[in-house]
């Protein structure tokens, strides 16, 4: 595959140095396979279990959305896949296979080789993640120069091409501009150009549109979808905005307190969510696509501290249905189990009960919205 160009050197070195993790091979042939990823941070106050047992797989050309509130471990997961916890005091365990190669046990040098080349990342705030001292063109060309045997001139030409690809007008001249000369939307485009410059197989976008206005957000989401089709990369999009994931994602992982609450296709999560936390998220958003209801249905309480995660189901203090589980929610961590084909949820409620409650909730929400609407029309 074209994606493998210029990689012979690294591959040869890998063959020479036997990898440490041969005792288990990836369970699936997926391009990215994350198994039981745990990222813990020891602090003076205690162990922060930022990510506590996450597993998912992702195929080429597919998009996974990771949603959750702040502090649910979304970003820590993505940094973990990028290998950016190397050299910090984080305790990372589990397995991350990228194309059959295990990343957690891999050497820092090997991870650095992959980073920016096979795996790239788009950060949330384009202003603070672009270096103000270097031109945009230099920053885009940098990774291309490092990972490919090309001259400076060719790399700059590549930067111009990339800027053109992401829709920056006059790329020939803009390539020499500094980040402050770009607007917010253009900076995010430049970030995308930078991350795609080596044609990565896996692209991680951490809140790529949160800092942008809604019309610019629409442009960037379109651009990401177009580029994904063109490049065929796998994309992980991390966001708290359910609208954004609905737009892009094939699969969705809902995280709560560092754990997986629910995992399934976007149809699973939006049309037949099984976890009370997902119900809460869907109920608390004001919906533009439905009649306006008078009241939103918030999730009571606040997300827990990750040092002191509640016993049993981490969501039980905020869950309206915790009492329906014969006390299991309070002292037993719910295992992730299948509630449908490829649809997993970590909840003690039985599948039938989940279906019944969601059906009732949905009907109640729709009828409340309709009656509020009728009252308003009258």
């Amino acid at each position, binding site marked *: 595959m074209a994606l493998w160009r210029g990689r012979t050197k690294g591959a040869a070195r890998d063959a020479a140095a036997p990898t440490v993790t041969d005792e288990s091979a990836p369970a699936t042939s997926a391009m990215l396979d994350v198994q039981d990823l745990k990222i813990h941070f020891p602090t003076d106050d205690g162990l922060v279990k930022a990510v506590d047992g996450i597993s998912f797989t992702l195929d080429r050309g597919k998009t996974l959305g990771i949603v959750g509130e702040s502090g649910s471990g979304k970003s820590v997961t993505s940094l973990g896949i990028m290998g950016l916890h190397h050299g910090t005091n984080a305790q990372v365990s589990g397995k991350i296979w990228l194309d059959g190669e295990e990343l957690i046990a891999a050497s820092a040098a090997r991870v650095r080789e992959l980073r920016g080349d096979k795996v790239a990342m788009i950060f949330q705030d384009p202003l603070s993640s672009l270096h103000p001292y270097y031109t945009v063109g230099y920053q885009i060309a940098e990774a291309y120069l490092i990972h490919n045997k090309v001259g400076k001139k060719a790399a700059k030409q590549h930067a111009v091409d990339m800027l053109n690809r992401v829709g920056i007008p006059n790329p020939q001249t803009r390539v020499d501009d500094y980040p402050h000369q770009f607007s917010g939307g253009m900076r995010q485009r430049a970030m995308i150009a930078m991350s795609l410059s080596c044609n990565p197989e896996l692209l991680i976008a951490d809140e790529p549109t949160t800092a942008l206005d*809604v019309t610019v957000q629409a442009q960037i989401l379109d651009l990401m979808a177009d580029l994904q089709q063109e490049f065929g990369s796998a994309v992980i999009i991390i966001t708290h905005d*359910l*609208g954004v994931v609905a737009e892009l994602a094939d699969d969705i992982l809902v995280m709560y307190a560092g754990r997986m609450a629910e995992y399934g296709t976007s149809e699973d999560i*939006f049309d037949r969510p099984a976890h009370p936390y997902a119900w809460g998220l869907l109920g608390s958003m004001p*919906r533009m696509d439905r009649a*306006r209801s008078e009241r939103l249905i918030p999730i009571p309480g*606040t997300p827990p501290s990750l040092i002191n995660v509640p016993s049993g189901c981490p969501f039980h203090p905020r869950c309206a249905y915790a009492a329906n589980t014969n006390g299991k929610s309070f002292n037993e961590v719910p295992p992730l189990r299948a509630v449908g084909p490829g649809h997993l949820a970590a909840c003690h409620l039985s599948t039938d009960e989940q279906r019944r409650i969601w059906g009732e909730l949905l009907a109640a929400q729709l009828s409340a919205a309709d009656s509020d609407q009728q009252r308003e029309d009258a």
Partner: protein
Amino acid sequence: MTTPVTEPAEVPAPASDTLLTVSGLTKHFPVNRGIIFRRRVGLVRSVDDVSFDVARGETLGIVGESGCGKTTTARMLTRLIEPTAGQIIFDGRDITHLRAGAMRPLRREVQMIFQDPYSSLNPRHTVGSIVSAPFRLQKVKTEKGTKKSVQELLELVGLNPEHYNRYPHEFSGGQRQRIGIARTLALRPKLIVADEPVSALDVSIQAQVVNLLDDLQSELGLTYVIIAHDLSVIRHVANRVAVMYLGNLVELASREDLYKRPRHPYTVALLSAVPLPEPAKRTAEGGRERRERVRLVGDVPSPLNPPPACRFHTRCWKAQEVCRTEPPPLRELAPGHQVACHFPENTPAA
């Protein structure tokens, strides 16, 4: 160009259900260069000739993208910055150019909720002293004593009154926003100007605060001007909605009208840009269908040098010659629905 809604300042408005009337409100910030010889090199036209009124007990939502002047408008309403031109009439009084001393009694009646619950609370003050600050500054003696009143306020916004002696860092974002709301409510204001009150909060917490604002309004008969960039939040909270673009008011209508029949092309584009929480349909090949949407190209132009005439013409798909030469006036196209556009959408052919 201004709409004829203004009453002469000193005459009490006959229809006293209007709490706030703003006409021709303008704020230009000069851009200066040079250290010894300061010279003006430009003018940022943040807010240009904005007029609207707010009835008692209603909620006016102001939406627009960053740099459209929504926050500047809010700060002028609360007189945190001095308007360049125009008039603000609050409760029958012209407050446009009141001096700080004369403004002070009015501060009891107009309060503000800020966007960032982290930077708008002093980290070295306890919750009690933050929420009681308005009493202290206004030298208000409450019947039951300040502490009791503060605890009642905390309870009103859904906080534990026993947290009186805690510091802001001990609270989460949503709780901090509640502290800010308790502070604004201390003096029982008539008008609350909320600048992005929920945008810094998580979805589930956002819903709590939106519901709280709703409850307080019906309980205390408050009038809100709520500024937000999130159109779905505005649809939820506002009775009437004003859409701003680059310092201009481009559309003002009741919520129902605006969301069902947006008339300004910018509003149409803004509404269609909102991503919906509904998975896009799958195509036969397993890909996703792209949603039909109006796509705006480019970014918002700089307010330092806004396009002439209709400021939206550079990004508008309906723009014609007249849009480049003649500014469209804000006209009432339907009862209560004002639009500043030469070629409005959703309008029966004239």
